[in-house]
């Protein structure tokens, strides 16, 4: 059976029921609208509105879900010995996310959060964290095209306050 999803720019996506169920948000909406896998009429007569997701982003979400629709459920996040959250991003996911420019990656993260697709959300969070980790502040600012509005005196004060914890 198929489910119809409608994006904010009125694009309709027809996806497999299993793919639709990967989103906790869509699952809840289907339940609220009495749409069930065994009731074709309910699926045909209804569509799920997703006002927070655009057509372009939805296409990427569905591509990710297609790849992961047969995955076994697993513990998505773990903590390392310092208590930091860690998540293993598979090679396919790395390649998949590499194709998005950073602005799109942020939109995809917003969509994964709204749709509650945990695996995709964790993949993106870990990918952005990896981009930041180990870099100096000016390198991070340049990478993300952020204009620094702190004065040198303010920066000096911030550094001074945490000097004790730096190697």
């Amino acid at each position, binding site marked *: 059976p198929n489910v119809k999803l409608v994006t904010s720019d009125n694009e309709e996506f027809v996806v497999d029921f299993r793919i639709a169920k990967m989103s906790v948000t869509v699952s809840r909406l289907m339940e609220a609208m009495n749409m069930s896998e065994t009731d074709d009429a309910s699926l045909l007569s209804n569509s799920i509105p997703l006002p927070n997701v655009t057509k372009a982003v939805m296409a990427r979400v569905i591509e990710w879900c297609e790849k992961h629709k047969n995955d076994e459920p697993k513990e998505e996040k773990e903590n390392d010995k310092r208590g930091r959250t860690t998540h293993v991003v598979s090679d396919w996911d790395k390649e998949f996310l590499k194709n998005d420019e950073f602005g799109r990656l942020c939109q995809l993260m917003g969509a994964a959060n709204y749709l509650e697709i945990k695996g995709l959300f964790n993949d993106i969070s870990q990918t952005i964290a990896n981009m930041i980790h180990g870099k100096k*502040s000016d390198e991070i600012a340049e990478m993300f095209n952020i204009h620094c509005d702190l004065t040198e005196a303010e920066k000096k004060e911030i550094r001074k306050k945490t000097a004790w914890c730096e190697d």
Partner: protein
Amino acid sequence: MGDLTRQCMSPFEALPKELFWEILEYIPPESVLKLRLISRLFKSRISTYSIRTNYVPTILQLHLRSEKQDNKSNDSAFVVVIEISKDERRQFEERLLLSNPPTGLTEKKGLKGHTASGAYITSFNLQAEDKEDIEYLRSCLGEKIGSVLLTNCNDKGTLNAVTEFVDGIQFESLELSGNSMSSDAICHLFATVKSHNVHLLRISARQIPAPAETLLELASLVHSIQIYQAAKNRRKLHANEGEKSILLGLENFDWAPTFIGMLSRKLDTLYIRNLPYERYLSRESADDLIEHLPKLGKEIYFKSTCKQFDSALDCEQNGYSIHADASREVNSYLIIKSSSNLYIERVNY
């Protein structure tokens, strides 16, 4: 944040703060600190990140150790060692690093990492006069601590700083350790025990002022006292010194009336480990304890080093069990306890 403002921002800045915080979860605190140098928006978001949850740390132990070299110097340096469950390391580090620490705060090198039991420790150098540093660390600790350990805290300056440090914190166990304790330290001890409702008190020392009177008074305030006698020379006892009868600086003293008096008060558990002077408790004192403690009519647990019995003793009297090791055994003890096993579980040696 308005739509227009968001449009002028880079995509990373335009992320809702909840998603920004999600990314921070994957980054070690040191890298999070670097993000504060990027822009005012990031600095503000990271400050709110550190206080976004009502996280209350569970400090296992707070150890305050005076670094004062001698009684004459004015130096009032001390080290604060904070022991926390390893599961809370991340949250506690964030709280320490991101809550706007004072500029003078310095970490104690070499005293950071995991203990044998797997807990995480971190430590700081402080001066008793550094009110701002003390206040800051105090604010990171929360309201409840497993136990507080004070080492060599003898001078008024350090003791006042200790009072400030533990003010408003609940703890049931207090340990004092040092070679020779000053009368200021004992006054401070009474005040701390009273104001924090301490249940278990552990004293590791060579001598304290007016030992018998001090212990009697403390027995009215706490349920459990453990005494660990320190040797004059930690590495080696002088010839015949082991034969001497000393406890907390008091020589050739009949301790039986004091111990009976202590266990007649609020105190119900008394443990004395006196390995440097294993004969500190005379045979007459031991016999007095065996005769009188079972007549107290309350649940007690008494255990003390005692090397005065030629052969082992095991008997019951008045619902109390009495056991003495033969003196040839290493670490000989005299144990008198109510036959209920309640107190065996309560005393953690």
